[in-house]
């Protein structure tokens, strides 16, 4: 029966780590997607200063969370998103509207793909 308890502990730990991974990544993905949408809207309305401010907040937030993101995600994934967010701020500062919108769309797609890969779906299982 001791081994039964060990099995239960292993399952509990797996669920705990897996649950943390799922919750952390998906909840933050929604926040980032929301902020990117806000940045895109600001840029489309030519509110460049506000768009730059949102981009700065995005970049700062992601850099502060990068440690945990690297634990739960492939480093190349988090690195790619980090690069896109860094570029967003530069494009806003230099007035590259099209580049800003394209980079924001790409970052959003990457983040949502990352989130969808964590969700329990048949295509993810198979």
């Amino acid at each position, binding site marked *: 029966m001791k*081994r*039964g308890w*060990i*099995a*239960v502990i*292993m*399952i509990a*730990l*797996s669920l705990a*780590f*897996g649950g943390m*991974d799922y919750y952390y990544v998906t909840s933050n993905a929604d926040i980032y997607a929301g902020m990117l949408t806000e940045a895109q809207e600001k840029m489309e309305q030519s509110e460049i200063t506000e768009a730059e401010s949102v981009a700065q907040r995005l970049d700062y937030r992601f850099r502060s969370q990068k440690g945990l993101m*690297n*634990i*739960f*995600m*492939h*480093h*190349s994934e988090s690195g790619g998103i980090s690069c896109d967010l860094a570029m967003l701020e530069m494009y806003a500062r230099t007035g590259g509207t099209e580049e800003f919108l394209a980079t924001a769309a790409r970052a959003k797609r990457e983040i949502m793909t990352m989130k969808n890969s964590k969700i329990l779906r048949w295509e993810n299982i198979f």
Partner: protein
Amino acid sequence: MLTIIIRTILIYIIVTAAIRIMGKRQVSDMQTSELVITFIISQTATLPLEDADRPLLNSLIPIMMIVAIELIVSLIMMKSRRFRSIICGHPIVVIKDGKIIESQLKKLRISYEDLYSLLREKDLSDEKSVQYGIIEPNGTLSILSSKDMTTDEISSEDLKDELNDIKQDENQEGETE
């Protein structure tokens, strides 16, 4: 590089703990499922060593789940003979009273030469002195050579069932003749 070194140490500790928890077996004595699980754990454990980009949790969680499943399956196998038979199979008698049972060999897809090879490993030249020759679920050949041993004297329920099945088959063949 230091990352890889630390990961290697962590993976070593985790895999050693996992194998230790699952219990000691030599590779030659492992059931099929245990062998498969050992391979899966070893493959899963090497992934974060080959690719530093990959999170360690992506290997740790599968290893823990596999160990947990293996422990649960082994507990159920201890309680349920039927379940054990489904997972591991059951012993199959291939020699009875000095005669090879060909139908059993065909079931196992073992040739006569393979069987003689297994007999030679037991220092026997042929099947004539063997009362019962049993292929165990792990593929090894066991020899019972006590003369005039009856089915009632056998403690193993799996083996008793197998011998009773053979007896029934022989009776049926006798009736048809």
